[in-house]
């Protein structure tokens, strides 16, 4: 029993590390070959986990080999366009200049129902509004709307907008993010003063606090602090 427990913990850790080393993409964003490797790695972890007769090293070697193959393919994909197109395939333009490309759709074995579904998922309900639609190698559909159907942007209205960068999270679940504070060139003392101004005792009572690029501090106290106040 304990051996199975130990083997499971070991293989789980190994599979997690392998998946982490494979990269940050989510399952939905995986290319076909990456998906195959991810499934195989998970399966290879399970087999020696269940069967104690199989030496653990067999699973480890198989997982390491798949990781090596995946990393090698990724490196080759980065360096060669040809290899990338062989491995991932090429995108397909399914709507060009507002016209559905029947031949291309047939080649990609992509039917009209799938096209309409993916357009709806892109918040496009009228085919008339689409100028271009591209079926990506991951299976996602990228849509370029006709200029008349696109949402109005400040640029269209010739409005001037201010720069907006990424807000800095200064407190997360009661813990002060010192590196973020340093980035903003602010001190912990300043943060405490700001919290006191908002009636919060200190960082441990804060769920999240973030600082926007305009210098506006957003603070949400933890539920217990809010209940105490009420």
């Amino acid at each position, binding site marked *: 029993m304990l051996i199975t427990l130990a083997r499971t913990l070991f293989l789980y850790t190994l599979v997690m590390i392998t998946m982490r*080393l494979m990269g940050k993409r989510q399952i939905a964003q995986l290319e076909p070959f990456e998906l195959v490797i991810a499934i195989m790695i998970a399966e290879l972890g399970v087999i020696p986990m269940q069967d*104690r*007769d*199989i*030496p*653990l*090293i067999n699973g480890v*070697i198989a997982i*390491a*080999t798949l*990781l*090596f193959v995946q*990393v*090698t393919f990724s*490196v080759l994909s980065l360096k060669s366009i040809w290899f990338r197109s062989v491995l991932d395939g090429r995108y397909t333009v399914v709507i060009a200049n507002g016209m559905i490309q029947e031949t291309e759709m047939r080649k990609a074995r992509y039917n009209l129902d799938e096209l309409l579904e993916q357009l709806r998922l892109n918040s496009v309900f009228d085919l008339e509004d689409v100028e271009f639609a591209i079926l990506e190698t991951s299976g996602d559909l990228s849509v370029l709307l006709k200029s008349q159907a696109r949402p109005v942007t400040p640029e269209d209205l010739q409005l001037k907008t201010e720069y907006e960068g990424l807000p800095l999270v200064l407190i997360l679940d009661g813990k002060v993010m010192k590196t973020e504070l340093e980035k903003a060139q602010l001190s912990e003392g300043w943060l405490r003063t700001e919290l006191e101004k908002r009636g919060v005792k200190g960082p441990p009572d804060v769920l999240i606090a973030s600082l926007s690029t305009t210098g506006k501090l957003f603070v949400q106290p933890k539920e217990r602090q809010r209940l105490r106040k009420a």
Partner: protein
Amino acid sequence: MKLWITMFVVMVIIVVGGLYLENSILKTTNQISHTLNTIKDAVRNDQWSQALQSLDGLTERWSKLKETWSPFIHNHDLQTFTLHLARLKAYMETAERGSALAEITNLELQLIEIQQQEILSLKNVL
């Protein structure tokens, strides 16, 4: 690229380690096979004390080998060999020639099985 280099080194270690293991298994199983032949000859000539002495040496060597090989070879194969060794000893202690010779054949076959399973061949790959 750092990850690729690390993984490449890991793969080289696996390949070298695999070749070393394969070579070591072949060499050791051949030596065991030779010992089994000696035991077989002794059993055929009813030299039971000499046969038992050789078998004890082989059993001792096997118990050490089993520990070394268990992380790499299917445990079932190793256990089967251990079981046949124990049965051979029991037959030899009661001087049952026919059964002892049959067990030696079983051991030889099991040895060939272990050898063939670990060799990098097209048959094993497919």
